């Protein structure tokens, strides 16, 4: 049973436009969420996180939105740049637990110049 789902395996966006990556989860115990970016042949790089006490967190061009009632989070990248082309993973965890991350299967973002 996939507890964290990224239903869009790929997304293409024009440079300068907004990229919206979506993630759904099923476990209501999750209280901490993160987004990682992964380039080929490299490990995942931390992008941004949000705890369940917030519904929005912003860092530069990246904003994460959390809708707890819908068990849904999204990552917005504005404006998108060609260097943003990568695979994006969302992850969720329970802070009071072992803090292991449960990852989605990733969305491959391609930003077209």
């Amino acid at each position, binding site marked *: 049973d996939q507890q*964290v789902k*990224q239903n869009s395996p790929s997304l293409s966006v024009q440079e300068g436009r907004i990229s919206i990556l979506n993630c759904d989860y099923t476990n209501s115990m999750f209280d901490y969420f*993160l987004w*990682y970016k992964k380039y080929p*042949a*490299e*490990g*995942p*790089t*931390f992008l941004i*996180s949000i705890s369940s006490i917030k519904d929005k967190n912003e860092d530069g061009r990246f904003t994460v939105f959390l809708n707890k009632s819908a068990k849904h989070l999204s990552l917005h990248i504005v404006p998108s740049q060609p260097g943003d082309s990568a695979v994006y*993973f969302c*992850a969720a965890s329970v*802070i009071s637990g*072992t*803090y*292991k*991350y*449960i*990852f*989605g*299967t*990733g969305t491959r973002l391609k930003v077209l110049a």
Partner: protein
Amino acid sequence: GAGVSQSPSNKVTEKGKDVELRCDPISGHTALYWYRQSLGQGLEFLIYFQGNSAPDKSGLPSDRFSAERTGGSVSTLTIQRTQQEDSAVYLCASSFYQETQYFGPGTRLLVL
């Protein structure tokens, strides 16, 4: 400072052989995690260390998989009698207690 490092970066082995994968976490990080990513899949949790103890081994897929951590630092993941389905990228991450996890570049394992 230096990030998480893993060795080897690539490993090709024959079915039935044992392999050892090494992880050097960020200095001072107390927690260490092993994940793996099979082709077309997300990252799958394997095992978690806090110091040298492993309170959560729930993700290890079989008893052929084991891991240890010594001196609160370096960790080794051992896969005995490798099978073709063990082929994956094995990723190590470390964190300061329950803060954000930082990942190494991974070891790409191919079992022929």
